[in-house]
């Protein structure tokens, strides 16, 4: 290399409002980046799922077919398919381009809280209030799930899939970590109902937020607690948490309308970002860039690490 590596920039926290999108679909239950972070999905309480461009803030497509409010969505790695789950107990696999329902998966007996593709989008995993996680096969035409993970004793609130692991958080206060490669199930007892779980980017730890207004960073292999993050308010809502793109910070919604950033190592609040007056229901961190999506009431806000030079174009705030 001819040039020395540039001095590493201090991690930037998305604190500047880039754009506000009024989704026009009732309350936004969840907002998600797609796999590469160029688009966002907003799940509305008016039974619709909308696909937006992050950079321009324009609506690209509306996916309607659910019978009740959409609770979660995910995009496949190749951006060709979407999956969404809803209070109507179904999981729907969408074709992105045509907006048609590819498959409507019924089997849950309660509303479906969370849905996730696996890495190759060959399996959809959906966690429901009925306490099961169902693994649906997208490759075959079978309408029954491949396997039902019914170990949870209460509703499954959150679910993440990595290359060979499934992480579920349940209202019974346990984080379950299914290791497919080892054929093992690790159950970590936390006690308080769990609202959101996620892996760290390096896959070594798990982050879980619970209804006792605490986030805990647990070592994945041993279950020991590595960090605890408090200060925000999370007592009754299912709210998202996340890690920043470089695992430097822990991000969580709060019920009083803020987004909290904690330093991952020190555990201190790094930033308290005011988002709105209402509850910040959902957030999603960009997979690579310091970009954050937040959803409050009917709006989705895009936050960036640096202020946007150009004025916001045509979106009403």
């Amino acid at each position: 290399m001819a040039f020395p590596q540039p001095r590493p920039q201090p991690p930037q926290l998305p604190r500047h409002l880039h754009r506000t999108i009024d989704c026009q679909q009732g309350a936004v239950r969840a907002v998600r980046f797609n796999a590469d972070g160029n688009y966002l999905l907003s799940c509305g309480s008016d039974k619709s799922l909308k696909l937006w461009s992050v950079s321009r803030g324009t609506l690209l497509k509306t996916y309607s077919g659910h019978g009740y409010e959409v609770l979660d969505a995910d995009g496949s790695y190749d951006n060709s398919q979407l999956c969404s789950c809803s209070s109507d107990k179904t999981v729907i696999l969408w074709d992105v381009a045509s907006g048609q329902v590819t498959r409507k998966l019924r089997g849950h007996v309660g509303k479906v809280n969370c849905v996730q593709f696996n890495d190759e989008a060959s399996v959809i995993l959906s966690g429901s209030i009925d306490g099961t996680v169902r693994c649906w096969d997208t490759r075959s035409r079978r309408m029954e799930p491949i396997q039902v993970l019914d170990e949870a004793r209460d509703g499954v609130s959150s679910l993440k899939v990595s290359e060979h692991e499934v992480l579920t958080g349940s209202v019974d206060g346990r984080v379950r970590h299914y290791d497919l490669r080892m054929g093992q199930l690790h159950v970590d007892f936390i006690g308080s109902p769990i609202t959101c779980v996620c892996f760290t980017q390096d896959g070594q730890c798990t982050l879980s937020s619970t209804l006792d207004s605490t986030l805990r960073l647990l070592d994945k292999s041993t279950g020991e607690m590595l960090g605890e993050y408090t200060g925000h308010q999370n007592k009754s809502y299912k709210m998202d948490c996340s890690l920043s793109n470089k695992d430097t910070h822990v991000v969580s919604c709060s019920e009083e309308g803020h987004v909290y950033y904690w330093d991952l190592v020190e555990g201190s609040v790094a930033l308290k970002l005011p988002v709105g007056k209402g509850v910040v229901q959902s957030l999603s961190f960009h997979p690579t860039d310091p970009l954050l999506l937040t959803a409050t009431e009917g709006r989705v806000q895009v936050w960036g690490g640096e202020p946007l030079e150009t004025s916001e174009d045509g979106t009403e705030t």
Partner: protein
Amino acid sequence: MASDSDSDEDFVSYGTPLEPLEEDEPARKPVPVHEQTVKDEKGRYKRFHGAFTGGFSAGYFNTVGSKEGWTPSTFVSSRQQKVERQSARPEDFMDEEDLGEHGIAPDQITTTADFGSGCIDPIQEKARTLSAQSGPIPGDTLLHDLIAPARTSVGVALLRKMGWREGQGVGPRVRKRKMHHKADAGERVYGCALPPEGSAESEGDSDDEFAPEDVTFAPRDVTPQVWVGKQDLHGLGYRGLDPSRALPAHTSRGQHINLFTLTSDSTSSLLGLSHSTHTRRGVAGQAFDEDDESVYHRDSMSNYDSVLGGEEPGDGLYGWTAPQQYRSKSKDSKRDAAYLGKILEGFTLASNAEEPKTVFAPPVLPRDYRPLRRYRPLLDTSGLSPLLAAALRDSRGHMTQPQQAIGRHQLDSAQRRELLGETSLQGPSSVFELLRPEDQEKLSSVRKAADGRRDVPEPSSQSGGPPEGRRGVPDLTSQSGRAAVVAAAKASALQALSSRFQGRQQGAPEGQSGAMEGHKGAPESQALAAWSAPTADTTNTFKPFDKNPHKQARYDQYVSLLRQGHKDALERSLDVCMTEWERGREREEFVRAALLYKPSSSALSTRFTRSTHTEDDSSVEVTQDAESDVNDKESAVKMKMFGKLTRDTFQWYPHTLLCKRFNIPDPYPGSGVVGMPKVKRDRFSVFNFLTVNESPTAAHSPASSSSGDAECSKAAEAGRRSRWDVTAPPAGQEDPLTQLLTQARNQASVPTHTHTTAEGRNPVLGVTFAASVMTRARFQSVMTRAWFQSVMTRARFQSVMTRAWFQSVMTRARFQSVMTRARFQSVMTRARFQSVMTRARFQSLLWNIHLSDLKGDQQNDLQKGKLYHNRLFRLQPLLGHCSACSAYSPCWATVPPVPPTAPAGPLFRLFRLQPLLGHCSAYSPCWATVPRAAPAGPLFRLFRLQPLLGHCSAYSPCWATVPPTAPAGPLFRVQPLLGHI
């Protein structure tokens, strides 16, 4: 080329022209693959058939026939017209397809040998040479060579006429100088260049100094470079026998043998001279020359290469025609020098050396590794003495892993307790302590009454009865007796528990072994059905292997497994350490013993059927590994001690398909289990309803005690209200109850003739107690047993018949489901059959060996072809049962054989069928008595059919009595029939 205006016509076009495009025509859809078919010139589909004719259909549907079938040619040869001898040529069997352009023998215009050049087939030539040598004149071929016919092709002749001479190239003449310059110029050549001038031509160039200006030369004869595709199956670089080398005569070049120089190869060889100036023949890359003469001649080492690949043959190009500079460049690289082998044709050395593949060594196996997976045999050591158990363990030590290496899930609570050094628990040791005091009193009073009665001497108990039943009645009131009961109960509880879990673990492998045992499954399943029947009295079992305690232990385990309804009980109870032969023998012995000594009350089992839904009702599937205590975890969370305290790890079986979708190898291949392994537990267990005292010393092993066995100890301490925590012990704890009932029954069965009323009452008393704690199903099964025994005491049984006889009788219990044995015997008495047929025949019928009696068959067979031969002989016994042949009379067989003098008309044989014809109403039995002197006119034979014709209304029976003297008009005989007309 003529440059005409319409030059299109001069172009040579190859292939099929595309159809002209029409602009207004809609775009055609491409024909899909499945509609693209290949047809031959006759429009038939070419289907792939086999090896013949390139794999496509041939002939008429691959036959030699035609649409009308195959007609063989007729051979006709007469004296006048003698057939000419037809010699079948291969072409006679070919059709036009074969003779066509793509057939196996294309019929095309070729030049004949006469037309071709003077080229002589070398093989033919050699053959001719050899024949000439063996011929009368040895030098015949010399003459032939001397006088060679002038055979040149037309093309050569034409060229000659145009001024061409052999050795010259074809084309306009060129100046020498120009050519020279061209060679020296060293022009850059792009792409593939012609091969550089060979040595043969260069020598001509070099010495040719004189080159006048105005003299033109013919161009050099250039041998065109021919690229031959690889069509054979030999390896790369293989060169087969070179005929030009193999055959000494270089006649293929059109040379004549030079008679006058002895150095000529062929002449010298022909004349028998040998010379040592052989060309060097390398071994590499060539098949050995089959040179006949060189086999025996003396060879020297100078004929062989001493260095591998030292000298390159030929031009050193190996057919590769890259520009010279590149070749020379690659020559001087170091790697090339190091490379010793010959580079194959069309290959060059790689410019970049390939990275060597790293091969990781396989993991080193431990020294004591055995590639067999062994399942620990389930040995019931709890009932044996500790010394014996230790000996058993030691005896298996060398085959299995040491005890410590077993995972904690395989240990039972006692073993774990030993490892941890804890004392045993001080819980309630007996069921009786759990009962209310008044119940206990009641029971003890019952027991006392029974004891009092037992003092009456019993004469038959010493001789016959099952030894265990008498022996093993402990005194519940005394401390030692109770301890014995408790010990037995614990032992069986442990056994039941461990076998239950072992059963789950071993489920998969034994499913495989199940197929192996398929052939002997029938007696096993019988034994299983007998022992696991709900009414089977399995408390008192005969001990057939009492002399061999090990074997008896194994047998007991087998029986206990049978009782629980395990299908693989046999395999599980056998010792793994034994040899296959021993195990096989023991297997048979056990099955036989289990069948022989199966529970006595199985006769009753016919009155009950197994409910099909009981299992669903009474048991529930629970995950085998239970989560450890929540309270501990909560406290751990409060103390923020995450980690071991809050984590539970279970075996979890992902679905195979899920693994496939995640691109992950199945962690448990072939397990068939999905999710968490499940275990069936009783839903309503006795101990769900009993209040269990909480023991003060609740030693709790944290987090690790997730195995099912651990619950045994946990249940005893039983502080938790969880339903499942308490369920484990009942299997064992129930046994004291049955023990109790056994006692009740045993005391009832004390053989007294005076206490019959007590016999009836006492078991019921015991049972009423049982009913307060037992499920209904189990109560019924116990109850019926008790009832049975109260009705018919064992002593009475024994007085009536010995045990063995009883068992042998009871094995036929199947009949009893239909009818009692007495009735069966009355039905099956042979008296009835004897009235019909002989005893031997009946037996042969019964045994299905033969349908007739053997002796009679033999005798009958001897008569074959004669009149006495009875074809139906073998079927006779069967005919007796045939209801349609009710006309058959059993005395039939006794009909005296028809005398040989009897008229043997064709219909006479009908006599034998008389009984069958008996149903024919017109049949008259007196028929056979028709006098033989009756007129035998041609129609008289009809007389014999009279009975059959009897239904014909026009028939007059007096017809036959027409006097023979009556006018014999032709219609006379038919008159009666004509009467109605």
